[in-house]
């Protein structure tokens, strides 16, 4: 039996592998007459970052002309090795090594100042979100320990109870980050002011929330390389 395995060769091209081991690539797969075709849905990796951002967030990073206005107004700019305009440039240049080497992506506060002032409407905040998502899916990059600890603690809380218990959040955060003594001094003051409810709230829909998070996680794992899913933003058209 002659079987042709048709896979994704990246950049819109297909690869065809036949049972005798020969492989061809091209825009239109040519398969030997009589062969049985199997489609391999796994995408070719890695997808260029600009293409990934285009596909998932509908943003064309080539429109960025590196004016620096985003970085000029970024509140975290002084602390980032790669401020927003650099992140845009490295995305266009597909330099994963430099982008994911440091912690700049995770220092973004999503304050949206950059996106609000960008003259070309390339929405750096959304690009950074997309890159963070990609990094999480691929296990790339290093979120600073504390930042990762906070987000993980946050998500753990709501996965467990559906709502955030601030006390639970702080405790989880301390355990994950190792910052055991942080803010310990103010705890009594918080308690005195009635700002630390010690009993977590349980809601009936906690299971729903857990399920939503599980579904999204599954989809995240499959998203890299798949056809455009729900999540492609229609906010930005080609201009």
């Amino acid at each position: 039996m002659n079987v042709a395995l048709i896979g994704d060769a990246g950049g819109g091209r297909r690869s065809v592998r036949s049972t005798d081991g020969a492989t061809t690539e091209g825009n239109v797969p040519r398969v030997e007459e009589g062969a049985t075709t199997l489609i391999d849905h796994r995408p070719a990796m890695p997808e260029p970052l600009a293409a990934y951002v285009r596909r998932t967030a509908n943003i064309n990073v080539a429109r960025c002309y590196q004016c620096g206005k985003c970085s000029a107004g970024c509140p975290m700019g002084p602390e980032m090795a790669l401020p927003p305009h650099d992140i845009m440039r490295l995305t266009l240049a597909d330099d994963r090594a430099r982008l994911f080497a440091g912690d700049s992506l995770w220092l973004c506060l999503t304050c949206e100042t950059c996106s609000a002032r960008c003259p070309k409407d390339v929405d750096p905040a959304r690009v950074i979100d997309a890159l963070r998502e990609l990094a999480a899916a691929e296990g790339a990059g290093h979120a600073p320990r504390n930042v990762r600890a906070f987000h993980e603690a946050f998500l753990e809380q709501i996965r467990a109870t559906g709502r955030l218990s601030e006390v639970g959040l702080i405790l989880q955060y301390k355990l994950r980050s190792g910052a055991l003594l942080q803010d310990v001094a103010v705890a009594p003051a918080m308690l005195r002011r009635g700002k630390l409810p010690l009993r977590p709230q349980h809601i009936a829909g906690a299971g729903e929330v857990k399920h939503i998070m599980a579904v999204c996680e599954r989809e995240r794992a499959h998203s890299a390389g798949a056809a455009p899913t729900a999540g492609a933003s229609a906010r930005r058209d080609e201009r």
Partner: protein
Amino acid sequence: MTLAYYPGCSMHGTSREYEESLLAVAAALDVGLTEIDDWSCCGASSAHVADHLLGVALPARNLALAEAQGADRVLAPCAACYNRLSGAVHAVAEEPGMAARVPEVLERPFANTVRVLSIVELLQGLAPVIEERVAARLEPNPLEHLNVAAYWGCLLVRPAEITGFDDAERPTGMDDVISACAANPVRWNMAVECCGGAFSVSRTSSVLRLSRAIIDDARRCGADAILAACPLCHANLDFRQGAMSLRGEPPMPVLYITQLVGLALGLPMSSLGFERHFVDTQPLFAHLAREADKAAAAAAERAAAKAAKAAAKAGAS
């Protein structure tokens, strides 16, 4: 007026006074607030950082609940929750495929019919009513001597195409509310600059740097207090103010917008939760009371002088 009410996770915890003052003010202004039954966390920043779909689905669940409970408008007093909920409304309306995918993920029907209201929108809409009530009060209004800097933070006005209800660089909605309360809105520069938001716990040093700049500017522009409309902004400016080395300068009280309105309407102080603040508000109120007394005394003197003059005139003729 009745609105669905989405408190968000801080309202019963670190920003308890926000909810206290909100409920007091709502009652005084005949705004019925019905808490969404079984609401869950909107995901704040942690969800959308991890996953765009999660960042839409978590808030959308609450909108779906509100819809099912017959609401057409939801009040989200926390700026982050407001931003996430509005973001979900926008994403489901505009992003291809979202309108179909989100109900699937939620396993709930969702028609995206609910509108999300921020606290500023609500109070700005009620400003004429507030102004009337303030004017109707017989006692002199100490708030007339209060210079307050309206701090919006980032999430109420950005992204403009999602929140879109005021100018993203120089919004005026909060100033309208302040004026309605007969206080003086200060012209200052850091109204929409970020306080450090979600890094309050995980990167406090950044928050101290950013919030410090905000407080400095408010002070330089002559503010006696800063007005906040977000639990996290309030925490960064108030709770964390002690850690900022303010070089011997007097502390800057941070009030919630609902607390200001409550004061203006003459609601009892105990219902507004000032004692829960970290930066003591008593010195400020004492100062305002003194100013009010001085003004009252000066007014009485003028009235007496006028009466005397009129009497003298009557006596002479």
